[in-house]
């Protein structure tokens, strides 16, 4: 008999022992090289935990880069399209970045941790690109993905539960703010950020304390019906909140193979992220050119008639295909059938009516549905608690 040890090809996160224990459905997926649950027990119940109580997501696989040094801010300002100088210390900012051709590479968040000290969270691995970007800057870029364990705790009672495990005064933290607490003798950083469009936080801690953190959260949160959530529930929540997902809603430029498949931030509804008043950032010249010559595509949110999710649908105008759906879901809380789509210009202005060609299957039978849909100017789910400070108590 061979005594070859069988190991999974995927890496595990610092929370894995607990994740595995809680993952009743044994439904696993891969997230950037790590094994993570698609669901723990029931996608819809996990989703409803986010909206009604609190859902916990292990986000350790997210790529994290530490950027330090005297040129850290200038480095980031050349890297991303927005003005990083506007992100104060102990604040977090959303950011997107492009290559020189103005093609969207990724989106993520920038944590301003201190003087000349930032963390960049990205969906894609960016080691190579960041290294090239560091040429000529007095800056140090370190991949710290494996050095930090991170959990998202999202939902109306998230603040309450975190306060119970020792985050005294957390309710005063404004959206996109950062606070630090002691957790069993080590620093626990909490940011009021997330990917669900709800009141919620992300917790950052040394991997040695990961399991203890999980245990405390689920212990103190039990009475508040805290639940773990997998990638599928998160997907539902982020579509409802109108958040883009790299590799789903756009092809990151570095992995796009076919010509014409990349998109610029202007074509992805991210013009608000592009600050042309900065004299230099990667893609600036190309984006200025596109702005003057006109866009090829427009990214739109569609309110689709009926309750059949318009997944992978063609979008038609007067019977002619003008776009495709990249993400779609029936959103339970917003009670709407939402779809993200890329449509060819000039279609897709707010209020424009289009048709989604939806195919769905029931007991082997495929049905084609031509569902009218309307371009809306923002997500339909936008609860006040997302912004309220102090965060509402429960």
């Amino acid at each position, binding site marked *: 008999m061979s005594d070859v040890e069988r190991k999974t090809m995927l890496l595990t996160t610092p929370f894995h022992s607990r994740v595995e224990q809680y993952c009743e459905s044994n439904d696993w997926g891969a997230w950037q090289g790590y094994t993570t649950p698609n669901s723990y027990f029931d996608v819809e119940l996990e989703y409803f935990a986010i909206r009604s109580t609190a859902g916990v997501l292990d986000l350790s696989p997210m790529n994290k880069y530490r950027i330090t040094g005297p040129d850290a801010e200038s480095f980031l300002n*050349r890297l991303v399209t927005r003005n990083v100088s506007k992100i104060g210390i102990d604040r977090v900012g959303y950011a997107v970045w492009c290559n020189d051709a103005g093609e969207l590479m990724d989106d993520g968040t920038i944590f301003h941790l201190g003087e000349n000290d930032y963390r960049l969270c990205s969906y894609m691995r960016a080691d190579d690109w960041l290294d090239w970007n560091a*040429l000529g*800057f007095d800056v140090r870029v370190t991949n710290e993905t494996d050095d930090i364990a991170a959990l998202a705790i999202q939902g109306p009672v998230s603040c309450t539960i975190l306060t119970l495990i020792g985050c005294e005064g957390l309710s005063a933290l404004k959206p996109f703010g950062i606070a630090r607490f002691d957790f069993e003798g080590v620093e626990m950083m909490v940011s009021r950020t997330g990917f669900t469009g709800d009141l919620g936080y992300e917790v950052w801690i040394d991997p040695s304390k990961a399991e203890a953190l999980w245990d405390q959260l689920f212990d103190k949160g039990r009475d508040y019906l805290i639940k773990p959530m997998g990638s599928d529930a998160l997907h539902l929540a982020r579509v409802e909140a109108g958040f883009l997902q790299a590799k789903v809603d756009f092809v990151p430029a570095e992995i796009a193979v076919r010509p014409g498949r990349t998109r610029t931030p202007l074509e992805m509804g991210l013009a608000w992220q592009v600050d042309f008043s900065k*004299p230099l950032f990667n*893609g600036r010249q190309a984006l200025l050119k596109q702005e003057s010559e006109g866009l090829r595509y427009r990214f739109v949110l569609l309110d689709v008639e009926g309750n059949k999710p318009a997944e992978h649908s063609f979008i038609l105008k007067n019977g002619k295909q003008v776009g495709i759906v990249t993400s779609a879901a029936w959103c339970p809380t917003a009670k709407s059938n939402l779809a993200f789509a890329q449509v060819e210009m000039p279609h897709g202005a707010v209020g424009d009516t289009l048709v989604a060609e939806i195919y769905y299957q029931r007991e082997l039978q495929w049905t084609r549905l031509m569902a009218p849909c309307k371009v809306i100017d923002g997500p339909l789910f936008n609860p006040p608690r997302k912004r309220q400070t102090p965060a509402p108590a429960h």
Partner: protein
Amino acid sequence: MTKYDAIVIGAGHNGLISATYLAKAGKRVLVLDGRATAGGCASTKAFSSGFHVSDCAQWLHQFDNNIIKELNLEMHGLRLGQPKRTLALQATGDHLVINGDSVKGGEISPADKKAFKHYKSQMRVFAKLMLKLYRKRAPKMVEANRGDQVTLLSLGLGLKMMGRKNMQDMMRLVLINIYDVMNEHFDHEGLKAAIALDAITGTNMGPRSPNTVFTYIHRMVGEALGNQGVTQVMGGMGSLGGALLSTAKTQGVEVRLDSNVSKIVKTDDRVTGVALASGEVIEATVVVSSADPTTTYRDLLGYRHIEAGQARRVEQYRTRSGTGKLHIALSALPHFDGVAPEDLSQRLVIAPSMDAMETGLNPMKYHELTTQHVFDISIPTLEDPTLAPAGQHLLTALVHYVPYALKTSWEGAREELLESLISQLEAYAPGIRALIVASEVRVPEDFETSHGVTGGNWHHGELSIDQALMMRPFPGSTQYKGSVEGLYLCGAGSHPGGSLMGLAGKNAAQEILKQGVLK
């Protein structure tokens, strides 16, 4: 504050030519150079007592004769020597003599003689076609505008007019190596090596490296431009710099030497001028850099002032040269076995075989010194006695393969290399050692220090297909336009490349004028 239409960085031949054409069109132009003399790599320096040596470029063989006429360079003191024959020295002492399309001596076979004629005439056809591309900006393939389309059309027509056989050959040959092409045509090892030498001069390549047919055709463009073989510049190569300086000044170009540009100044999103090492800032509508692309972007503009993809291109741009130089001051005319004294004024080449060349290249790849060099020798004092005290002589040689970087340091290695080179020369010129008054070897790193060319590469970056024509120096910075508004390139790092040709400088000026950025 005075504002110029254009500031040209570098008073090398391309810088001065660009400046002069801009001035001829009525523009206000300032040329800045950190060196004390104009000419850049076309320079002469005092050597030992009473000797004057062309300390960088040695031969003129690519210079555009139209530029000589248009800029009245002869009136401004440029005098060229007689076109030279190439004597490919053989170990037997029975040397090959190459003169234009004919070759004799060295027990060359009638078949090789005939093949050489045929080879040269075919290469001339290719070079003429290439020249069509060299006289203007290289056309972009994808987003070509009308001008580019006309160039492409004329190129396609040119290819077609060559006839099927030539066209097929050109498409086939241009990407392979000179080693294979030589073996297809010739039997004589010495002849093959002498031709292959023209393909690798100034590069980091061996006869077997891909691209070496392209570099050979590049060299052949020199003939299409009106040059017959190599010539020496009377008074030393610096006289070319002097003539260009003089014509530039006559056209109203302001030239400031000893004025080292330390920075290209960017205001908001465009280049607005330069800063000198002294701290002085000078403004201009455009800045035209004849410095090599690496110096321009990495050192003068700074990676942080360009987009990251461009910085990456610059960093990946290959700039290393494998050519060094040997200078020897001699108390008398040396003796070379089998060479008549009057023939010592010709070009003498030591390249026994292509395999020997390739073997010489091998250690260089691993940053080591070889003991088997290739020599391209000039004894300029026979034609121009002013370069040495009466009765004394000067020998200079382009020497391949000298690494840019050594595994160990150059400390002490220069002496070792010099000794090795003299010993190798002695095999062909017995007794030369006893005549040596002074000697020095210049390695690629020395050219970087003295002339500011990155990698010591006189082409301002390896001239290979992926870094040539519409991709020179690299995408995002082609057609003489820098990757930042207001910045232009006019040096050998831009199309069509180096070797004291002058077309990069002229084309850049024409392009700037055509774009109408200068009012």
